C-alpha cells in the first residue's frame, strides 16, 4: 500500500511510531498529484514548495501535533494568507488574502500541511464544478463525468488520493453531493458549528464549512479540530463541542432510524433506491429500529432554496464592485459604469443568473410574494424535521437521485441541474448536520447514503455512519485512474 492511500488516522499512527517522516508523507502525496492531476484537474493552485518546507519544519521539531505532516486541500473559497484565493471566479483571479480563515488557521496550528487550493463552481454556485471560471474537474471514477459540486475539486482530490482530506462548504448540498459522486465521505456539520470567518460568503444563513475524507473516523478527527465558537463569526454557536471520536463505538443497537418516504419518490434512480434499502436492512441486522416516516413539505424545499439562497447571494455579491479588490473595468468613465462593467466582466453566467433572481425576489412589490413566502415555507420544512426527531435519532436517505452525470450533459438548463440538490437542500433549510457515505456502486459509479442528525448532534450521526462502515467495505473501494 502506498503512503498516499492511507487515511488520516493511519498516517498519524505511523508518524507517531516514527515509521515515516512528515516529509515522506508529503512527498508521497505530491508524487501522486504529479501522476494524476493532468487527468483529474482538482487543483487551482498547488503549494508544493511551502508544503515541503512545512513538513521539514515539523520533522525538525520532532514533536508532532494533531495532524502534523498530513497533506490537505482547501476549496478555493477559504482565505489563505499569502496564497491566491479565487473562489473559482475571474472576479478574484489575482486575489491574495491578507488573513487566514479560522478553519484553516486551526488546521495550520495542528501542523496540517496545505498542498493546494481546490477547484469549485464559481462562488460555490453549481452542482458539477463546470461553473469554475478556469477549467472543469473530472470524476476520478470516470473521467468523462462530473465530480459534482460545488466542492468538486475537494471531492475529486480525496477520491484520487491527491490529499488525505479536504475542506469544502455546503450551502445546499455542495459537500454531500460531490462526496456521493466521488465515493468519499462528505460531512456538513450543523449550521453554526464551524466558523465561517474568512470563507467567502454565498448564502449566509445556509453556508457551512465541512470535511471530505476517506472514512468516518477521519471526519470525526478533523471535526475535533475545526468545530467550536469563534468570536470573529457572530453566527458561530457558543455550544460545547464533544469529542467526536468518542462516539465511534461501532454499535447502533436500539438506535432509532427514520427513512422519509418522500426521498424515495419519482426521479430517484432504482439502483440508488436499491442500494439505500440494502443499507437500511444492514442497519436492522445490526440491531437498529428502522421505520418509514413522512417529511410532508419536502417537495417545497427546492423552490424555497432557489429563492432564499439567491436573495442572500445577491446581497453578498454586492461587495464585488471593483473598488477594494477583484476585477475592475478600467475603461469606465464614471463610478456607476465601473461597478456595472466590472461585475459584467468578472462574474460568470450562473452567478449573474442568481444575482438577478435574488435581486428580483427582494425587489419591493415582489418581496412578500417570493422572499417572505419562501421564509415561511422554510419554517414548515424545519418543523417537519423537528417532529421526526422527537421520535428518531437519525434520518437516512439517498444523497442524490442518481450517480455522477456526464460532463456537459446538464449544462444549459438550470432547472435540471438544480434537481441534483433535491435531497440535500432540505437539510440546509433546517440547518441540520448531514453526512454522505459510500454505500454501493452502480455501473462502476459510487452511490452515496445521506445520514441526517439532530442539530448539534453530529456525534450520533457519525456513530451511525461509522457503524455502517465497520460492517461493509464500500469506503475501501478506490477508482483505478489507469496509473500505478
Amino acid at each position: 500500500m502506498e503512503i498516499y492511500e492511507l487515511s488520516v488516522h493511519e498516517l498519524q499512527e505511523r508518524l507517531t511510531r516514527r515509521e515515516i517522516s512528515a516529509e515522506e508523507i508529503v512527498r508521497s502525496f505530491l508524487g501522486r498529484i504529479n501522476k494524476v492531476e493532468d487527468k483529474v484537474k482538482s487543483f487551482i493552485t498547488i503549494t508544493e514548495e511551502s508544503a515541503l518546507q512545512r513538513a521539514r519544519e515539523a520533522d525538525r521539531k520532532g514533536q508532532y501535533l494533531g495532524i502534523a505532516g498530513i497533506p490537505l486541500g482547501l476549496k478555493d473559497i477559504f482565505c489563505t494568507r499569502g496564497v491566491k484565493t479565487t473562489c473559482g471566479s475571474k472576479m478574484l483571479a489575482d486575489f491574495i488574502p491578507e488573513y487566514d480563515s479560522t478553519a484553516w488557521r486551526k488546521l495550520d496550528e495542528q501542523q496540517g500541511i496545505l498542498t493546494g487550493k481546490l477547484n469549485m463552481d464559481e462562488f460555490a454556485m453549481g452542482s458539477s464544478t463546470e461553473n469554475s471560471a478556469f477549467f472543469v474537474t473530472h470524476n476520478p471514477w470516470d473521467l468523462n463525468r462530473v465530480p459534482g459540486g460545488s466542492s468538486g475539486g475537494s471531492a475529486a482530490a480525496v477520491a484520487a488520493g491527491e490529499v488525505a482530506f479536504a475542506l469544502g462548504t455546503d450551502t445546499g448540498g455542495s459537500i454531500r453531493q460531490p462526496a456521493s459522486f466521488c465515493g468519499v465521505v462528505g460531512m456538513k456539520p450543523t449550521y453554526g458549528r464551524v466558523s465561517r470567518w474568512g470563507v467567502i460568503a454565498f448564502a449566509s444563513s445556509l453556508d457551512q464549512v465541512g470535511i471530505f475524507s476517506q472514512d468516518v473516523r477521519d471526519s470525526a478527527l478533523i471535526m475535533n479540530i475545526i468545530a467550536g465558537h469563534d468570536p470573529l463569526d457572530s453566527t458561530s454557536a457558543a455550544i460545547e463541542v464533544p469529542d467526536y471520536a468518542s462516539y465511534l463505538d461501532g454499535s447502533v443497537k436500539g438506535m432509532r432510524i427514520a427513512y422519509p418516504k418522500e426521498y424515495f419518490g419519482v426521479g430517484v434512480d432504482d439502483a440508488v433506491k436499491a442500494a439505500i434499502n440494502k443499507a437500511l436492512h444492514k442497519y436492522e441486522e445490526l440491531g437498529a429500529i428502522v421505520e418509514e416516516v413522512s417529511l410532508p413539505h419536502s417537495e417545497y424545499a427546492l423552490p424555497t432554496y432557489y429563492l432564499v439562497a439567491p436573495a442572500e447571494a445577491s446581497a453578498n455579491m454586492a461587495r464585488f464592485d471593483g473598488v477594494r479588490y477583484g476585477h475592475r473595468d478600467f475603461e469606465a468613465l464614471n463610478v456607476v459604469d465601473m461597478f456595472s462593467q466590472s461585475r459584467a466582466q468578472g462574474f460568470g453566467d450562473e452567478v449573474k443568473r442568481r444575482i438577478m433572481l435574488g435581486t428580483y425576489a427582494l425587489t419591493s412589490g415582489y418581496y412578500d410574494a417570493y422572499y417572505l413566502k419562501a421564509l415561511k415555507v422554510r419554517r414548515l420544512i424545519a418543523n417537519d424535521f423537528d417532529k421526526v426527531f422527537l421520535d428518531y435519532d437519525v434520518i437516512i436517505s439517498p444523497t442524490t437521485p442518481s450517480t455522477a452525470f456526464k460532463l456537459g450533459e446538464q449544462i444549459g438548463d438550470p432547472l435540471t441541474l438544480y434537481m441534483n440538490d433535491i435531497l440535500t437542500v432540505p437539510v440546509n433549510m433546517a440547518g441540520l448536520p448531514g453526512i454522505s457515505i459510500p454505500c454501493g456502486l452502480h455501473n462502476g459509479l459510487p452511490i452515496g447514503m445521506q445520514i441526517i442528525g439532530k442539530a448539534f448532534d453530529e456525534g450520533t450521526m457519525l456513530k451511525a455512519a461509522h457503524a455502517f462502515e465497520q460492517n461493509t467495505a464500500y469506503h475501501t473501494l478506490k477508482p483505478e485512474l489507469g496509473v500505478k
Partner: protein
Amino acid sequence: MALTIKEVEHVAMLARMNLSEDEKQRFTEQLSSILNYAGVLNTLDTDGVEPLTHILPAFNVFRTDTARNSMPREEILKNAPLAEEGQYKVPKIM
C-alpha cells in the same frame, strides 16, 4: 409568472450589472421558468406561519470595547485594483 425584458433590465440596473442583449433574452426566459417553478409555494397556506430567517436563535453579540490593531493599510491595499497615497482610487463621482 413571465418576466419582460424591461423588468430584467430594471433588475440588472438595481444589481449594478450590465447585461448583453443575449443575456437579457436568456435571463428573461430562464428566470421566468425558475419563478414559475417557485410558484408551487403559493399552493401552500402559510397564514400565521412565522418566517424563518435564521436557524440559530438570534441574539445580539457584545464584546468589550477595547482597541485592537487593524490590518496594516499597505497590505490591504495590495489587492486594490487602483490605489494612491494610501487610498482607493475610483473614477470621478461628482
